């Protein structure tokens, strides 16, 4: 099986990699680009732990081939903080103790950021629907929902000022 050479952007930086044609984008990000914030939960698109954005669309990176990413822009949890400053979502997850084991957290952060980009003021129901593709076996979700609501509030204030 010959490798595929791919040029893409990850968190704004140009990257190049060679991967087997059947390798998932998740494995490329974790094993070739050392972005281990991308987690493998199920590997079949059910749990959302491997969530990334692909040209600004939220996707499960386990259901994308590395070869498909040619010319595309990928966003991972590693790109969420800016200049060493935590993103309001990250701060809110800490403040609300919205994580225990932490495996699902990067996926939740990427999915929640994608939601707030589309809808800066989601209702609790909208948050729960938007995050239905992210599974957490520890928290029972309530703390995650509160954290997203609180971050949304902070982000709306930041936007105003």
């Amino acid at each position, binding site marked *: 099986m010959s490798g595929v050479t791919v040029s893409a952007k990850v968190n704004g930086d140009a990257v190049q990699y060679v991967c087997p044609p*059947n390798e*998932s984008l998740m494995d490329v990000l974790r094993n070739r680009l050392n972005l281990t914030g991308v987690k493998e939960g199920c590997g079949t698109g059910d749990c959302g732990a491997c969530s990334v954005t692909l040209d600004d669309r939220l996707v499960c990176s386990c*259901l994308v081939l590395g070869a498909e990413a040619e010319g595309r822009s990928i966003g991972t949890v590693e790109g969420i903080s800016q200049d060493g400053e935590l993103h309001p979502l990250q701060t809110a997850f800490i403040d609300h103790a919205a994580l225990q084991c932490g495996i699902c957290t990067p996926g939740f952060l990427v999915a929640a950021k994608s939601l707030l980009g589309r809808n800066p003021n989601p209702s609790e129901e909208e948050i729960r629907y938007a995050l239905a593709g992210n599974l957490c076996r520890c928290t029972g979700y309530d703390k995650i929902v509160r954290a997203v609501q609180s971050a949304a509030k902070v982000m709306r204030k930041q936007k105003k000022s």
Partner: protein
Amino acid sequence: MRFESPTTTKAAASMLASESGAAHVLAGGTDLLVRMKMGMVEPDLVLDIKRIETMKVLKVAAGGVHIGGAVPAVELGESERLRSLWPGVVEAANLIGSDQIQGRCTVVGNLCNASPAADSVPALIAAGAKALIVGPKGKRRVGVEKVVLGPGKTSLGRDEFIEAVVLPARAGKSADAYLRFTPRTEMDIAVVSAAVNLTLSRGVVTAAKVVLGAVAPTAVVVPAAARAIIGTKLDDAALEKMAKACRAACNPIDDKRGTVEYRTKVAGVLGRRAALVAFERAGGSK
């Protein structure tokens, strides 16, 4: 395995035709990559059709709608025009999986995956959608109901793929609706589903199509259910007759999601409710 991403349908068709091994078309990949991971398929060629510009086109007009084979389901919901013309098709497509899946999955992929529980398929059939099939000998157009033959089986030749599905011109006072039953509110597969597309004239149903999902090896068109509501304003007697026709059309399996009896009963309930939703959307009142 080889990975190819042609930029024209012609190139894609000739790559499929010349592949002697197992060739698989990759659109959203939300089914194919899972099957590859599980070892259920071992492709020699994966053909990514997302670099074909014409397949990324979503064109929405009252005179007809063109949904390219590479258009992710999320884009359907983002089109206000499509939501108002074909609300049932949009709600069906948007029920497939999570936001993560929506960003990738396509209605053409949903059709070609040929699951009896596919959400968008009953709605497409009720809408009278046609599949635009590309092969080495050119293009052909067939009704969506003729594509799926059984679980995982389609009528496509091994060198054919679907470029787009096309919805017909919309008559005035028409609307559609899709309902599905799942034990959970999200991230589940239909136990039973129902799509209804209807047209009204002076408040009376003049045309209707009723399609059930997940109650037989393929989606089932139920002409008797449509006949039961045509010429009525969905009075209780017409709705009961319709529900009875829906139940009679069921040939479901028993599995962990539901028994034969349960699926049969719920098919009648969902058929009736979907008709009421479509009726109201079309401007009808009882």
